[in-house]
């Protein structure tokens, strides 16, 4: 009889982005050796459990069980640490395109309600990831990193970002509910925006953007006590400008906390937003609305930003939600070698959840490797931007 691993027995302590970590006295201090070792030990243990789950015929998904036959090694024996994941060949993102999506559903989770979230997809078949509860877990963990005075519990949210097949819309709504609030949403189809830009139809693109912003303004003016918001840098700019034109500001709407993200969230943009977009021109001394940067996608979940420190001069450093996902900054020519701290490399993502195992997915971004800190005792990344070899053909910051 095949024995199923009891995932629930070990999962709670392995979620490292927890309130416990957020409460370290100086979150930005360098991580101690003890904290580093503890984090590494937990990651290695998490890897072993994840591999056991995904390659056990009773619990694994058809894709990995089939792939295991051609690996040339038995992952359940050969992979004992995170470093052992290098034994897997490169993960090809084409595997995520097309069906059947059921090949990714672990046997151990059969019968549960499945969501499909897509990424890309302006042309051709999008990459998709099936999820059951991961999106909720990711955002519940992320919730623990949000300061309650800026994102008050029980207050309502505005989700002003891409909707449709992306998980953001549902995830932000869940985040609001998890924090005791209600989420108001505005539709936005980024694939249509990309098409308009590629056609050079900027006027239509501007009209669509205005249509989206008008809806946001209507919601904000409707007396729903919205205090928290997710939006993208481009939409934040457009919302702020529209409010300024009306003699108001984001601050004046009552919003006290914003999270935003993407490769457009550069240090200069962060500074510009904090110094200008998020201030109230009628009351400049009151300071900006709080905003925290995030970096994430459907595969990873949400990487949190290092807590704001004036000494960082708006430098943004992200830390993956380890051990559920791990980010490495690797050499452009050798994806199995980390760059030195401060060095530049491509982003390599490993997803290690009960629902999804993706070892060594090469992201379309690059950045600089950063040292661990007390709150996040594992490697971080700063300066995220489109991978230079793809940058010319990538349309970024469209919504």
């Amino acid at each position: 009889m095949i024995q199923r691993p009891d995932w629930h027995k070990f999962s709670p302590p392995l979620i490292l982005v927890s309130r416990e970590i957020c409460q370290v006295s100086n979150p930005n201090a360098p991580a101690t050796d003890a904290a580093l070792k503890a984090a590494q030990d937990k990651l290695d243990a998490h890897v072993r459990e994840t591999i056991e789950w995904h390659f056990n015929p009773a619990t694994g998904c058809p894709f990995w069980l089939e792939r295991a036959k051609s690996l040339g090694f038995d992952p359940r024996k050969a992979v004992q640490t995170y470093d052992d994941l290098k034994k897997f060949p490169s993960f090809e993102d084409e595997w995520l395109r097309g069906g059947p999506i059921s090949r990714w559903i672990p046997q151990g989770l059969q019968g549960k309600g499945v969501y499909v979230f897509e990424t890309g997809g302006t042309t051709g078949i999008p990459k998709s990831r099936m999820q059951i509860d991961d999106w909720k877990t990711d955002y519940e963990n992320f919730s623990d990193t949000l300061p309650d005075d800026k994102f008050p519990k029980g207050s309502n949210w505005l989700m002003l970002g891409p909707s449709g097949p992306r998980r953001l819309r549902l995830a932000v709504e869940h985040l609001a509910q998890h924090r005791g609030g209600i989420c108001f949403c505005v539709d936005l189809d980024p694939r249509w925006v990309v098409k308009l830009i590629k056609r050079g139809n900027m006027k239509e693109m501007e009209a669509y953007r205005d249509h989206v912003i008008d809806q946001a303004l209507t919601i904000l003016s409707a007396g729903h006590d919205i205090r928290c918001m997710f939006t993208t840098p481009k939409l934040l700019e457009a919302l702020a400008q529209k409010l300024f034109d009306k003699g108001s500001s984001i601050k004046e709407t009552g919003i006290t906390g914003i999270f935003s993200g993407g490769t457009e969230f550069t240090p200069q943009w962060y500074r510009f937003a904090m110094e200008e977009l998020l201030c109230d021109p009628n009351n400049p001394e009151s300071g900006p609305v709080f905003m925290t940067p995030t970096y994430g996608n459907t595969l990873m979940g949400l990487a949190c930003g290092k807590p704001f420190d004036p000494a960082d001069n708006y430098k943004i450093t992200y830390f993956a939600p380890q051990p559920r996902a791990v980010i490495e900054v690797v050499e452009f020519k050798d994806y199995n070698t980390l760059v030195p701290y401060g060095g530049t490399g491509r982003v390599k993502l490993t997803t290690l959840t009960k629902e999804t195992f993706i070892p060594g997915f090469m992201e379309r971004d690059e950045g600089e490797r950063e040292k661990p800190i007390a709150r996040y005792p594992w490697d971080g990344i700063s300066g995220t931007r489109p991978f230079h070899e793809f940058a010319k053909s990538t349309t970024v910051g469209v919504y």
Partner: protein
Amino acid sequence: MIDIPVLRWGKPYDSMEKQEVVHFETGEPVARVSQANGAMVKMDRRFAQRARDALRQFSIDQLLEMMGKAGDLYLNATLPIGNGTQTPADFCRMQSATTGLPEHMAAFNMRKNHFVLTHMREILEALTRGLPFDILSKGFGKENRGVMLSYQANSPVLGLVLPSNSPGVHTLWLPAIALQIGLVLKPGSQEIWTPYRMTEAFYQAGIPREAISLYPGGHDVGPAVMEACDRSMIFGGQATIEKYAGNPRVQVHGPGFSKILLGDDIVDDWRKYLDIMVDSIFLNGGRGCINASSIWASRHTAEIADAIAQRIGSVAPLPMTDPKASLAAFTVKGQAEGVSAQIDEGCQESGVTEVTAKYRNGPRLVQHERCDFLRPTIIHATSPEPTLTRAEYMFPFGVVVECPQDKMIAEIGPTLVCTALTHDAKWKQKLLDATNIDRLNLGEVKTLQLNWLQPHEGNIIDFLFRNRAVQTEAPLAH
């Protein structure tokens, strides 16, 4: 190295994102330029009216005096730039270093800008047809013959998305300040020099700082300038022209496809006009939209092509500091190679011959480590059909096209500057009626010889102001 800030209505803004502008031959940084973003442009748009208000504190007459002073300062003075200073010689050296234009051509463009600034009064008088300047300032008034007129500014500011490779275009926006219209400039990434030096000259001459913004930056800044300003000019290729065609808020400046047409009545004396043809193709590195890209005649075309080729075919690249240097460098990797390949491909078509090849003693494409050059190229085409007859490239390139006179106007297509050499009155009238020709030279005028008292690609007065009605009393009963 000089650090150059963004200027937001005159206030320097030191961005955390900077771009190094490098010497095109050595790769050494020449300046570090703060980068704006589109949101910044849109944020500052709210103060556009303040720019016009600041300029309207002065009369147009006072501003014209300041323009003249600014022209002298621009040409002769040591002026601030970022955290450093710049002499006129520095300016030429820096502009040459980042754009690939020989230094003496940079100096020529300085003199051209100086001429326009110091003759701005005559230029505005000509472009307004003698309108009292007060009418533009106040918005209405009576002209000398007692008729009430109103001119309303279409926008408090003029936006400019400027090119990286053509320092000659700046004369087009210089009248704005004198017309009490503020400036929102997005300089080209390699040619930041003229906008910054001109702005500093304006400031030193007394123009209010809050009248001008300068936003060097990335891909989102140009569209933001166009969105933020109710009137703007953009410089670009054919795709840019097509994109903004018919948009009344935008004046597009792109390829000129300028030409010289020889009438049947004078073509047998073509040798007499050889200097006009050679200079129109060759001067200023052949880079401008006002350089001729083709010569049209009904006969002697092979001889004309050969004579031009003999004059310029042997010209080779020289150091940028050499006063005889007549070719500008291509600083974008692969661009010259691509152009040369296109020409070779075009020469495969029937009836097309490159005439310069036999006078050049070497290949057209001269490749250096960090830049390339294209040596003068003259093509002969026995009809208007081949693709190359409609080509324009940024180096001395011209096609001599054989075409019957009665078909020329229809065949030449859009033409920014057309020099027609003819005494044929009927044909002259047809040329005057041809709407595909913008500037028409009827006589022995090189295509580059622009009279600034005449409008260029549209009258800037008509672009910036709307002639509408204002009545202060009831008209006579009728």
